[in-house]
């Protein structure tokens, strides 16, 4: 059998990331010359290596911890330079707008006074943190690390699906997937002008230095930076390890830190040591039992006191969750115009805000053609996909909408772009999205690439790792 990788590949009616343009011709050629058996063998080797390296997320059952790897697909997703340029500018614009929004919301609240955002959407939001009112955040950078979920529709137009402005995860896969690809398929990448993803740790440290207390006055040339993790039992623990290593900073847990006289210290073999910046991978409400959930064992009592005293910086800032939920998302094009006077460089998916009467009516009339999403859920939960829902499911959705319209948005059902993917030894089209990562200190930098998530189930549009998604290496070309 002389089958080659792309021989039997047919994307059907979807926009294909691999077949669509001239920029990917060289990679197509190389895949076209590679026997599928050979490809399969090397892909299996790459997966085993990921397992041995323990690049895993952990699933806990009653009796034991099971380490799973995020399924990795060896056929890369390729982005030519001009497309990346649009994404990069679009992400920077978006992050800039988010930071301006947060600065406004926690200070003057002009946008509320001008009536652009409904007040209750912000002030009644479970992620609104009133105690952040008036706090000065260095460089007004609230969202230091942002993951922007971007999809591509049937026409190949990029659209933002979601902003992740709290503690977005996945960047470790971007970098580990690249290492894996370059080891397993050096011949595929050789000489095609692939942009490196190696700088992430350095850029992250640099942003953390930017926001360190005393940085602007030059008082603190060598700030102590730490990464705060919920610990080894957290499903993203390996990403925390990865980032701490890339940054060269201690990976701490809440119990390693304490606050004395509004300053944060870590417990070391030589006694206490000052901590200046905390890249925290713990949600707001677990950070400090004195300020938030009193039952939190993960946080550090008194941390907020130190934060408000200006003795420690937190990344991301507290309270960013108010700007990245699905309700605020719907207003993002208006928010960008409001603060920046620009049109969005990457459009939203057209979104109907069900709290607005006309939108609700439209949604109810077109339920079988729309995707309905609750605004407060993450990870792809609670979504009704109209064209695939049963009569009963649609009725249930209708009832929920009428009962609590403000809790929902609706969007057209988009046929996400596809990418050739190795499935049981054959190459088939699977839907993908893209999460680029942006780091903001004094300015914003976007890692060239990002996490391409792939829905491994045939026809599935849900790419979340909790729901059977995998990942691909993302190749941005020079």
């Amino acid at each position, binding site marked *: 059998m002389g089958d080659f990788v792309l021989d039997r590949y047919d994307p059907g009616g979807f926009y294909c990331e691999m077949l669509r343009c001239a920029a990917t011709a060289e990679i197509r050629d190389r895949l076209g010359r590679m026997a599928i058996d050979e490809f399969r063998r090397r892909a299996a080797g790459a997966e085993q290596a990921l397992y041995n390296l*323990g690049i895993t997320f952990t699933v806990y059952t009653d009796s034991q911890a099971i380490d799973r790897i995020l399924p990795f697909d060896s056929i890369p997703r390729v982005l030519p330079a001009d497309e990346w340029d649009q994404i990069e500018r679009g992400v920077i614009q978006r992050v800039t707008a988010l930071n301006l929004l947060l600065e406004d919301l926690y200070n003057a609240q002009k946008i509320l006074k001008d009536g652009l955002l409904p007040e209750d959407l912000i002030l009644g939001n479970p992620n609104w943190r009133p105690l952040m009112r008036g706090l000065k955040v260095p460089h007004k950078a609230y969202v230091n690390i942002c993951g922007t979920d971007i999809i591509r529709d049937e026409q190949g137009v990029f659209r933002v699906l979601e902003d992740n402005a709290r503690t977005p995860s996945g960047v470790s896969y971007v970098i580990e997937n690249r290492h894996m690809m370059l080891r397993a398929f050096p011949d595929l990448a050789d000489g095609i002008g692939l942009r490196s993803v190696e700088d992430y740790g350095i850029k992250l440290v640099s942003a953390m230095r930017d926001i360190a207390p005393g940085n602007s006055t030059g008082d603190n040339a060598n700030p102590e930076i730490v990464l705060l993790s919920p610990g*080894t039992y957290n499903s993203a623990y390996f990403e925390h390890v990865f980032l701490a290593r890339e940054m060269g900073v*201690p990976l701490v847990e809440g119990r390693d830190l304490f606050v004395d006289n509004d300053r944060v210290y870590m417990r070391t073999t030589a006694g206490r040591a000052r901590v200046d910046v905390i890249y925290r991978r713990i949600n707001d409400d677990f950070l400090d039992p004195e300020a938030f959930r009193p039952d939190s064992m993960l946080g550090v009592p008194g941390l907020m006191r130190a934060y408000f005293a200006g003795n420690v910086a937190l990344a991301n800032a507290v309270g960013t969750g108010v700007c990245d939920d699905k309700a605020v998302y719907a207003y993002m094009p208006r928010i960008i115009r409001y603060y920046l006077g620009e049109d969005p460089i990457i459009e939203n998916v057209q979104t109907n805000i069900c709290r607005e009467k006309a939108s609700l009516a439209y949604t109810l009339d077109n339920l079988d053609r729309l995707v309905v999403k609750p605004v407060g859920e993450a990870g792809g939960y609670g979504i009704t996909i109209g064209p695939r829902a049963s009569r009963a499911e649609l009725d249930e959705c209708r009832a929920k909408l009428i009962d609590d319209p403000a809790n929902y948005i609706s969007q057209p059902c988009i046929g996400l772009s596809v990418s050739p993917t190795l499935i049981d030894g054959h190459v088939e089209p699977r839907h993908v999205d893209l999460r680029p990562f942006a780091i903001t200190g004094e300015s914003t930098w976007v890692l060239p690439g990002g996490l391409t998530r792939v829905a491994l189930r045939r026809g599935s549009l849900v790419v979340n790792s909790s729901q059977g998604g995998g990942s691909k290496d993302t190749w941005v070309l020079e």
Partner: protein
Amino acid sequence: MSNPLLARYAECIFWLARQVERAENLARIIEVQETFARNRSGNRDWSSIVQLNADEDNFAEKHSVANAGNVIRFYVTDGDNPNSIKTAIRNARENARALRPLVSTEMWVALNVFYNRLNAIDEREVAPGSLSPLLEEIKQGCETFTGITEGTFYRDQAWYFYRLGRYIERADQTTRLLDSKYYVLMRDADIANLVNTGQWMALLRAASGYHAFRLLHQGDLTPWRVAAFLLFNPSFPRSVLLCVKEVDTAFTGLKSRYNLRGGNDVAEGLDQLRSILGTRSIDEVLASGLHEFIDFIQRYLNAITERLGAAFFGHPPVETPAWPDADQWPPFAADLQTQAQA
């Protein structure tokens, strides 16, 4: 300037080292027992391993008879037994997981692969009589990890805590290895049974000390020489004296290089222990009881561990400040005997 080391990391690396060393020595102890059992005149009573680890109660909960099969399973593959090889490596891996930011990727991968291998042991591999290849593999797995650590672990504070753990555990385990055959060996020594030189050799082999011993004593193989070799030889890498010296060296290096304030009591205790090991003769030890001497050393090593915890791991101060008193030994040992009989 060096990086600060989290107290929690120091404790994790200390125990990681101990757990790997412990797994290796458990394999050695089972190996020597198995060799003895194969010998016609050998000891088929496997309960000595259970006693050695003070596991009588735990063992009795699961097994009614201390036969080869039960004891082997209990110490090799039983994940519920806190003192089994499998548990030691699982704990080591959990510590390594917490230490991922610090240890080399190679160290992590080695332990990860080793642990997955232990999880995949099947029944046939632990059958009495065909156990040797598995024990060999376990020893090699541990030694591989030790070698990778030596070759890839950054020489920072954590490296010193790793060495402290490794050598404290090794010293402790050598005393257990010797203790495991002590009664049998002493009984047989009285009648100078020639057949038993085979058992002495097995003990030395399990400690990887046979050839070194031969270089030192061509021909003359007596119980007290073997005991002296395992306890006091200054060049044998598993002798108690050498291990304690290594602990002392690591500790002095740690204190001076990283300017750590705590742990002066540890230094004092190590001094005393070195001096005891350096000045006792094997005749003195045998006269007052080898087992009691071994027990004394184990207590000492425990006391050192406790004080390390108070000085560097963030544990509360040790409440009993006195060291096991060398001047009270052998009377100290006599007390113990009285207690045991009571």
